[in-house]
């Protein structure tokens, strides 16, 4: 009987030596160590043995079982590590093959710029107010200190509707009057709003000008709003929008609805103010028109200009987007060409 143990051991271990794969390994284990395996059968023969040999035989079978178990574990580890090594060595793919197409989607570049604006202004307490596109002449011009035949009406080529009291707003400024009347509570409450939206001008459509474009108007009204606040607030915006160290320049200008009025230039963010083609070698880019709200406009909004003051500003998101991304042609914006939109 001892011989059979030794034989079994030899056969089993030599078979195990030859095993290379997991399946054979599992089969080997069930053949020798399974419930009905060869070692189990040896245990089964114990009962038919002479009593005096039983203990010694049992010990030998036990030792065999332990040895085979250990050999199995060892072999299994070996096979696994070999398989791992093989996988790491041979399982290499061509990472230069094209990716499986995933869908991305994207916001319109104009929307992206508006969101940037809105985030910065919201931090400074300016809330979004949406005003209407189709406006009364009175709101677009007259209440903004642009009475009929005012020379500054020439600055804006207006789309009129067939009702000559009604037009497409040429700027977001009429929203100033609406916001003042809606939130001012009869000229008794301070206001901080921004008014984003589409504006329209009857112009030749070219790479530089469009018949529709968006604007963002800002308005702050209070009992103690100063011109220095206008400078500080817009400079803060410019530094957050463009560059924390950007220089900002304020130039006297003219808008009928503000006085004093000024244009705001920011140091060219493309050349760092060194002078380049985009800033026409001046080092400056014009980013906003602004000024102290004209007393007539305050009055038309319900405020007493001897008590209340305010500032307003207007910016063109498309122009800023064009500068930021090197867009040469404004017609891309409403052309809806996916080849353009997919680049954002």
């Amino acid at each position, binding site marked *: 009987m001892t011989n059979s143990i030794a034989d079994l051991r030899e056969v089993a271990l030599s078979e195990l030596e030859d095993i290379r794969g997991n399946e054979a390994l599992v089969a080997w284990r069930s053949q020798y160590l399974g419930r009905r395996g060869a070692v189990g059968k040896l245990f089964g023969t114990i009962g038919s043995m002479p009593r005096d040999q039983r203990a010694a035989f049992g010990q030998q079978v036990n030792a065999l079982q332990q040895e085979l178990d250990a050999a199995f574990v060892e072999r299994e580890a070996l096979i696994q590590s070999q398989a791992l090594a093989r996988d790491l060595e041979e399982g290499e793919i061509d990472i230069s093959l094209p990716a*499986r197409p995933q869908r991305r989607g994207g916001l319109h570049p104009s929307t992206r710029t508006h*969101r940037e604006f809105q985030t910065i202004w919201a931090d400074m307490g300016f809330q979004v107010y949406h005003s209407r596109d189709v406006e009364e002449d009175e709101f677009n011009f007259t209440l903004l200190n642009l009475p009929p035949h005012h020379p500054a009406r020439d600055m804006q080529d207006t*789309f009129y509707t*067939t009702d000559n009291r009604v037009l497409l707003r040429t700027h977001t400024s009429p929203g100033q009057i609406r916001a003042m009347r809606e939130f001012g509570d009869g000229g008794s409450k301070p206001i901080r709003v921004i008014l984003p939206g589409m504006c329209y001008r009857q112009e030749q459509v070219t790479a530089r000008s469009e018949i529709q474009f968006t604007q963002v108007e800002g308005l702050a009204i209070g*009992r103690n709003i100063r011109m220095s*606040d206008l400078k*500080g607030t817009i400079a803060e915006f410019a530094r957050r929008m463009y560059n924390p160290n950007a220089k900002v320049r*304020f130039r006297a200008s003219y808008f009928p609805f503000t006085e004093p009025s000024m244009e705001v230039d920011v140091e060219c963010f493309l050349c760092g103010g060194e002078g380049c083609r985009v800033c026409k070698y001046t080092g400056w880019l014009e980013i906003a028109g602004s000024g102290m709200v004209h007393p007539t406009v305050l009055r038309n909004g319900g405020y007493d200009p001897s008590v209340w003051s305010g500032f307003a500003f207007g910016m063109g998101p498309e122009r800023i987007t064009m500068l930021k991304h090197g867009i040469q042609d404004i017609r891309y914006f*409403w052309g*809806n060409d996916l080849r353009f939109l997919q680049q954002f």
Partner: protein
Amino acid sequence: MLVPVSWLKDYVDIDIPIELLAERMTVAGLEVTSIRYIGVPQEQAPGVLMPRSDHLVWNREKLLLGRIVEVKAHPQADRLVLAMVDYGAEELEQCVTGAANLFGYKDQGEITPPIWSAFAMEGARVWDGHSAKPRQMTLKGKELRGIFNKSMVCSEKELGISDEHEGVIVMDHDEGYVAGAPLADVLGDVVLDIELTPNLARCFSMIGVAREIAAILGVDLRYPSFDFLAKGPTIEGQVGIEIREPELNPRFTLTLLRDTQVKPSPFWLGRRLKLIGQRPRNNIVDVTNYITFELGQPLHAFDYDKLVERAGGVPTIITRLPGAGEQLETLDDVRRELGAETILVADTAGALSLGGVIGGGETEISAETRNVLLEAAAWNNIGIRKTIKEQRVHTEASARFSRGVHPSQALLGCGRGIELMRQLGGGQVARGALDEYPLPPPTVTVDVPIERVNRLLGMDVSLKKAADVLRRLEFAVTTNGDMIRATAPDHRLDISGDPAVGQADLLEEIARIIGYDQIPETIMADEMPPQRENTAVFIEERIRDLLVGQGLYEVISYRFTSRESEAILAPAGVPSSWPDAEYIEIENPAVSERNVLRQTLMINMLESAVNNARYQSSQRLFEVGKVYLGRGDLLPEEPLRLGILLTGARGQTWWQEDARTTALDFYDMKGVVENMLAGLHIEDYRLERGTHNSYHPGRSADLFIGRERIGTFGEIHPQVAARFKLTDAKVIYGELEVAPLIQQHQRLHTITPLPTTPAVLEDIALIVKADLPAGEVEAVIRQAGGRLLRDVTLFDVYAGDPIPPGKKSLAYSLTYQDESRTLTDKNAAKIRKRIIGAARHRLQAELRS
């Protein structure tokens, strides 16, 4: 407006680099848009960046002022002459030239009075006068028809002054000229191009600009003399004035010059006019232009004798409105019908000119004119604007009058103009000016406390400083304690008599001249208004994000369209479902196909899809934008809509599989819409068969939220698609109202806790009638399954063998779960039995084994 610095220097001393001046003018509101250099180098002012100019800088050693002493014939050539030039050296220099304007001096001996020209020595760099393209060259000695020549007298083109190359520069004698002086000191110049905003009417002249510069630099302004030497008999009795519309013509002045001579203007005058882009004509007309640009007061010169002839005696100038059907032929040879509001200058015989705009041909100055009647008037700027608009005529005069010229300037211009004409053409000026001034503008005085100035500017300006700035701008200023009282000067119409507005006007002047850069930057210390959250904006942006997250691209379209475009969004012979309100029609559309505002986003999105289809096999687009619905009020409703368009292949080609083989369809759109609704936590919605006629009736759905139908989505009607040449790929479109999405979105939705017990999964397949909507089957399953049925997923729809004809099999995988206990097989079997029972009973469904 072009402003030569040499001209400005008549009125103001400028001793800073021009580049720095330009910067300071720009910051003070007179934007210098470009600078042109003539002969002189561009300077670098610290801190001021300018585009580099590539003009010709005149060599101070080699380009000199030369006197042409005499002109001799060329011995070998008739087309050439020899100009003998004194350029300050011992010997005269002989220049061979073909300049036509020197031929008149040939063989005439020494020229008197002397004439001067631009003399270039060998080695001087000049423009090539014979080259069509701008090309610089260096002057070299060479033989010209047998005579060696190493220098030349130059044309304007050779110096880069203008394109003129017909002859050389010939300048009249001036006592100050020195032969051999650097030419740059005589003809060198810098010309500023200034863009004037409408409030700067007072700066529409050299003196106007000089006045601003004087205030900016803090130096004095020198006015020219407005006196005139009058030795003739008084003007009274030689002409009359009758103003019939003082509102439109508040002032009219006349001066008269007799026995003068019309001839070309002297060099200096012609040069100045050319520098500002005007063509010199003759001494009389040139003076009217010159004063227009110098003072900003346009003048008009009449041939006095023609007026006398028309009147048959002493003429009377009448300013009046036209009679019915009255016409006038103006200087530009246009016969004009005159509108009822056009103010005319006329005489007893009829109209003479459009007041303040353009003269008439009949009484204009000609070579034969001997006696000149000079008009300087004031016109109402709105009246002029109306005339410009009606007559479509723009002149230097109308440009100024339409912005506003103060009536005080008329008499100044009339005096200075007639004196200059006398100096240039000779003759005698009649004593006095005829001056009708029925409506002087009010004098404007504004009071402003310095405390208010400082409070609004946010800086400390002393009373003295503020008063000083205003005085520099020629305000008459008195101070009393804290109060500044300023009276506007008589060249300004832009200071308001309204106390609050007038204060803002002064504030602007003070801040502008002190410099906006001097105002500090502060953070608002004012009371913060109540912060209101704008939910509509928040949800609108959330909708965009939910769609972008599903791989859609946002587009933004024109809001313009035409009625016809929206009318064809329906099958043939049926009125389109879209227009459900009055169109907002544009009176002056950019193009006739875009003459109304849209009532749907569909047309623009379809057009975008057509355009993109040339480059894209697959498109997923959306737009959030307004439509415009006229409802009988003055202003239309402007509701926000969401348009979604899907077309083309569901996927792209790839090397392991080609995902272009299936096309986007109704169910893709349904998925996009339902995902968006899920993201907004809107659960109370349902779909019904589509009723909108832009869509395929069998493959579209109306979306209801609560009771409200908020839009339709689905495959567009084949006949509509055909109109857009999109027939090869199906177009799936949807358009929804945004307002209900904003109203119905659930801001505070509660979540389901994560279960801790295992779920039981099983599949069932039901055989039902083929036309039974799957939605009804699912509804029955869910109802019967009750609380413990967590999820129902349809995973197969099958018709055909072995399913009997007229039937279909729907296979669902069901998920049962109870978070309070682990469900047993027995529990699951009970639910399953209930579901099958309900399906049998209510849908006549059979279990597929």
